[in-house]
């Protein structure tokens, strides 16, 4: 039986009981501030305790933000980084980066794909999780055709390499039609949004698609605890 990975968020994992094969790609999209990066952090934490090598490409903020975020949840970031099990890649500061791993000159998607591919090649013998947060930021300057072609070839390559990849998209950054097409390329789609009354909005999460697999598509409420991270409310249906 093939190895399966999970998000590390109990309620969400129960929505995909069979888990995700390594080589699957997850699209996480949602409103600004809804908790996409927190979900990415949970995904990384789960990978670390399961023995995966976790790579986090920070596009919207310096990697130090994710480092601090993980530390807040009492993850021994330094131990994992020293062991080469956690790589925080700076795609935010570009040339000014002080990080050990950084991606600069992101004027070409082709070049980004090569840099990412080179990085992954170093861990060809390991089980790898890759998170790009957020990929939509990288894609802003590019034309629709370029974006679609980039996705087709990149996701194919990640699948072949057996990478469990999570790409984060901020809603409203890319054209809606582009997002619809992109959504088809991914094995798993997760939507996060604010809902409920405007005076007291609620966070909602929904698994929108799992290719060739069962899933529970009911949107569910969740909260973010500074101690426990994402707390799913499995028994509260909307």
């Amino acid at each position: 039986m093939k190895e399966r990975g999970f998000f590390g968020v109990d309620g969400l994992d129960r929505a995909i009981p069979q888990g995700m094969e390594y080589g699957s790609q997850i699209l996480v999209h949602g409103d600004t501030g809804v908790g996409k990066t927190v979900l990415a952090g949970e995904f990384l934490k789960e990978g670390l305790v399961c023995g995966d090598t976790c790579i986090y490409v920070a596009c919207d903020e310096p990697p130090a933000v994710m480092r601090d975020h993980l530390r807040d949840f009492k993850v021994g970031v330094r131990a994992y980084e020293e062991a080469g099990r956690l790589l925080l890649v700076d795609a935010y500061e570009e040339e000014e980066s002080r990080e050990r791993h950084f991606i600069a000159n992101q004027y070409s998607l082709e070049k980004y794909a090569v840099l990412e591919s080179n990085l992954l090649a170093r861990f060809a013998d390991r089980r790898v999780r890759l998170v790009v947060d957020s990929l939509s930021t990288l894609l802003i300057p590019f034309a629709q055709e370029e974006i679609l072609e980039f996705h087709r070839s990149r996701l194919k390559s990640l699948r072949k390499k057996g990478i469990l990849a999570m790409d984060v998209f901020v809603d409203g950054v890319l054209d809606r039609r582009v997002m619809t097409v992109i959504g088809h390329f991914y094995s798993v789609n997760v939507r996060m949004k604010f809902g409920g009354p405007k005076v007291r909005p609620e966070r909602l999460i929904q698994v929108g698609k799992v290719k060739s697999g069962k899933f529970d598509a009911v949107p569910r409420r969740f909260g973010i605890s500074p101690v426990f991270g994402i707390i799913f409310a499995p028994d509260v249906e909307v």
Partner: protein
Amino acid sequence: MMNSEDVYLKIINSIYLTLSRATGTMPFGGRHYLEEITRGVGEQILKDYGEEFKLESTRPSDICKAYFNALGYLVFLEEGAFQLEDEGNSVLVTMSQEHCIYQSYCRRAQEEGLLFYCPRLGALQSALKNALGLEYSTAVEFEPASGVCHGKVFPVKRRLRTEMMHFVDDTLDIAGERAVLFTKDVYLSFLVAVNEYAPFILQKVLFDTGYRSFLNIAREAADCYKIPEDSLQVCFEEMKNCGIGRIELVSLDTSAGHAVIRCYQSFEVAVVEGMELYRTPRVTCDLLRGQLSACLTVILGYPIICEEMQCKALEW
């Protein structure tokens, strides 16, 4: 045919040897109990025959000499076979083994690698405790070439908490704290229950429980020893006595705040073995991680989070 004195010696040595074997397999404080027995024998002799035990000075070597003077006529102490030298609050004792009535026990215990406390030093230990009201311990090395034993009776900085386990009336007590023993089934039931009702707290609860439960132990250990490795060793012994597993410090870089630690026969691995508590195979020693994090944080003096980087029970 053996004379009666030989038979008595044989019996005494056999009793001590059997005690060493038995206490070595005792959980918690086997070492402590054996030491209590050797010291306790000396104390009883002191009670029964020590009317003449009069102190003229509080120097440890003088206390030992006063003890010899009071009880020197007793064969087991062999007055004159001891040389005493002060070393701070400790006493260095050089003893001839030639006429030692415990030599058969001593040799066999060393051959078998058993727990061992010299009964002769135990007598001095009891005298020092009686006179100064301080806890003392003993150590001895035998030099076969010269037939001389080099012993030391020294003040104890701290006893392991887990060695101080007693029944007080109907309650189990460890170092003054009410205690209870759990088997792995009980512990597993606790894990399963937490996992069923609030899975997102399980790892955190275990880590924090381990962390909080070892803060005081780590503080006491840090107060007793200047060298971090010595303090850590005390903590590791407490963990082992609790049944967590045998902990080994592979390396420690105090300036970098980096330690490599191994745990053998981990209780937390044994508990979840064969159970599908988690969806995917993973490291599970969160209680131990918390305990080690507390120890290193206190002993090194800055926040440390321990991570379990590898587990032999998993294939990665």
